[in-house]
């Protein structure tokens, strides 16, 4: 019996996805957990793994087409189906999965048809308005249905209360441009991908809702570079990872966030929510664009743990293997435009966060130190902050604190 290939639940507030590249074609043999097709949502790209050994028999939705969660996008014939009746998803399995209230994005299972409608209509409205994924809500209704009460409770939970997705302004039609004589003037129409659309919505939202200001400073990288040169071999030998700059900046940011907690807080009317933990997002270039995986409890991480985690993020981002939950949350972000050569920029906040630290290229510049002109490896720092809850003095103090820690890393040891 053919097995349906359905769009899996890909998490938070996602009902519609775009079909990416089919890695297997009709007639291709697949082994269990082989990636069959890429599913692009506005949060990330995931791969649909084969539920069993077998052969792809039918592709219903081509690359670039839209599909909804739960929709059948193809079929496969399991190998030796007669002796493997368990290949087709059955009701009890689903119930167990729903009751624990989580969906594992890393190993998404094809959702059976019933899963898609387990959210009652009123609950769908409550969750939709709050931008909370039905997948993140444990249903208490008959057969695990998400009831309105479940939805209301889930939205009230601070952790689940993601930013409401504000409607983007309708797009005006482009005005016709008079054609110039000669020369090809072709326009290419490329469908906006869900990821790009989401990025656009969030950026506009950040610009509209927060009072964004940016403050600058510069930092002398000599001390950190010297420290790296001195310990890079023994560090690599011991931890199997290079000692980079990011671990210094993450540690310095943790110290600064402790000193100026507003930058680590959230403006959630009528409250300002302060945290005693630092979940620091690190912007890394991925296969499909910039992604920002989050270092959870960065305040408890050692230099080596930070370097290992970032290296792991970068590798998996390149392969589109980051899990959705690794991209969610975050209380502060560090973005390093320096790797692309940026000298100075104003980063934009990742709402509902209140601050983002921008790192830039290191350049030798003549500096006046003790009345002498000396060449130093300098980096400009930028802090964009939400002025609604972070005062200018605090922002400047925050950035100065980072500068001080980087210029004299022994401060990080002593936490002064």
């Amino acid at each position, binding site marked *: *019996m*053919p097995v*349906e290939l359905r769009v899996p639940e890909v998490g938070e507030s996602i009902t519609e996805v775009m079909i990416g590249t089919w890695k297997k074609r009709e007639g291709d043999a697949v082994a269990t957990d082989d990636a069959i097709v890429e599913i692009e949502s506005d949060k990330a790209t995931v791969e649909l793994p084969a539920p069993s050994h077998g052969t792809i028999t*039918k592709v*219903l939705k081509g690359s670039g087409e839209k599909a909804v969660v739960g929709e*059948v996008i193809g*079929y496969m014939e399991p190998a030796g189906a007669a002796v493997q009746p368990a290949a*087709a*998803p*059955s*009701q009890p399995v689903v119930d167990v999965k729903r009751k624990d209230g989580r969906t594992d994005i890393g190993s998404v299972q094809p959702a*059976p*048809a*019933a899963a*898609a*409608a*387990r*959210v*009652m*209509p009123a609950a*769908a*409205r409550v969750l*939709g*308005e709050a931008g909370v994924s039905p997948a993140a809500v444990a249903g208490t209704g*008959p*057969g695990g*249905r998400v009831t309105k009460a479940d939805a209301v409770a889930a939205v009230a939970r601070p952790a689940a209360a993601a930013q*409401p*997705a*504000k*409607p983007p*302004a*309708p*797009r*005006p*039609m482009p005005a016709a441009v008079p054609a110039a004589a000669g020369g090809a003037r072709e326009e290419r129409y490329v469908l906006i991908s869900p990821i790009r659309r989401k990025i656009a919505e969030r950026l506009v939202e950040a610009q509209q809702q927060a009072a964004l200001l940016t403050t600058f400073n510069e930092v002398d990288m000599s001390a950190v570079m010297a420290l790296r040169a001195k310990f890079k071999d023994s560090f690599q030998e011991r931890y199997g990872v290079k000692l980079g700059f990011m671990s210094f900046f993450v540690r310095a940011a943790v110290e600064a966030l402790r000193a100026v907690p507003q930058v680590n807080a959230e403006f959630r009317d009528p409250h300002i929510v302060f945290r005693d933990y630092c979940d620091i997002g690190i912007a890394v270039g991925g296969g499909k664009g910039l992604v920002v995986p989050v270092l959870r409890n960065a305040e408890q991480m050692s230099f080596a743990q930070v370097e290992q985690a970032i290296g792991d993020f970068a590798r998996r981002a390149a392969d589109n293997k980051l899990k959705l939950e690794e991209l969610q949350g975050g209380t502060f972000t560090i973005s390093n435009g320096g790797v692309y050569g940026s000298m100075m920029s104003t980063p934009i906040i990742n709402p509902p966060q209140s601050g983002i630290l921008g790192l830039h290229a290191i350049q030798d510049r003549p500096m006046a130190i003790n009345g002498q002109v000396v060449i130093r490896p300098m980096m400009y720092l930028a802090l964009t902050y939400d002025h609604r809850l972070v005062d200018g003095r605090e922002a400047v103090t925050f950035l100065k604190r980072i500068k001080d820690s980087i210029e004299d890393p022994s401060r990080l040891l002593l936490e002064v």
Partner: protein
Amino acid sequence: MQYDLVVIGGGPGGYVAAIRAAQLGMKAAVVEKEDRLGGTCLRVGCIPSKALLESSHKYEEAGHEFAQHGIHVGGVSFDLAAMMKRKEEVVATLSKGIEALLAKNKVARIRGTGRLAGPGRGEVTAADGTRSVVEAPRIILAVGSVSVVLPGIEVDGRLVGTSTEALAFDSVPGHLVVIGGGYIGLELGSVWRRLGAKVTVLEYADRILAGLDGDIAAEALPLFRKQGLDIRLGSKVKSARAVGNTCVVECEGQEPITCDRVLAATGRRPATADLGLETAGIQTDARGFIPVDGQFRTSAAGVYAIGDCVPGPMLAHKAEEDGVACVEAMQSGWAHVDYDLVPAVVFTHPEIAAVGRTEEQLAAAGVAYKKGVFPFRANGRARTINDTTGKVKVLADAATDRVLGVHIIGPSAGDLIGEAAAAMNFGATAEDIARVCHAHPTLPEALKEAALAVHGAAIHA
């Protein structure tokens, strides 16, 4: 006058959107060119046709069925003018009700023909030709649809007409030719047949009721023919026109038909011509529908569209859902209308109703399904009301048992479909419906039995 929202069109989509907007605190106005609010549905559609269907059904019952109950009424006659007057009163009462609802919600009523005059601007032409401008940051286009008239059919509004005329004939035509075997043609064809007209229905396709489940339509066809509707499938109408006081209808490969009246019932198209869409840079699709996104936003900022003038089922209740969702999304950013779960009802006798997917759609999509069927002749209530024609059919996913479609032909099918729609919105399985205690003796027991039949467990069949 400055409004938060101006709705162009006072039909079921438009007036509902305006009331919902008012409930949410917006200052709203409705632009309507007709004296009566309620749109096609209330003025010249669903409501008057149901009034006439009920009157003509009662006449037919009195003449043919009362005797089976042991009631003898002697010679039965009817007064067409009185029937039309009752229909008028029903329409007038409901239309006044909408006026009262708008007033209660402080929704302004603007009389005149509304058209778009750029984003944020509407132009209203009153009956006397005077023009005025209304401005609002949000404008909803809810202009509905008009009858499609095929080339060759010369509608003169007298003898050759559309549903609007067929709802107001001043006498029963001796011979009525209906072009189109869809729900409009079959409903109005039934009305005039019951009142004594010879009715010929010319349908181009090889089946009636396109879009509905094929098995149900196939069951309905002989029933309608037995009632006296002369339904001719595969009839390609080339022309229809009035000649003096009769009409001539020409069909490919058939003798020309001479008749007294012609009803063109070949569907409806969006009423988007001359709506000023170009002033906001909005382009319709090839069939004239206004493209919108999931929140009913057109390509122009602040301009929305709902109901029959956007793609989707052209039904009053769907337009109402559009209207509510569109307005709510303006505030919450979230809108959802599940077009797969819009019920459809044909108010013939027996009634036909459906929600969800047909067998044809499931087969085309390659969905494995199970079918449960229960005939009304095995239902106690159907026996007691002497109305045992038809059946309930439940289609459920073979793997998950989730109900994917429910199709009913039989007594009160339009009322019965509500339970099925609710169950499907809740993601019910066939077993869920089967395990709900249904009152006895009632028609909904047939739905429960059909749900049981999905697993071969119907008790009474």
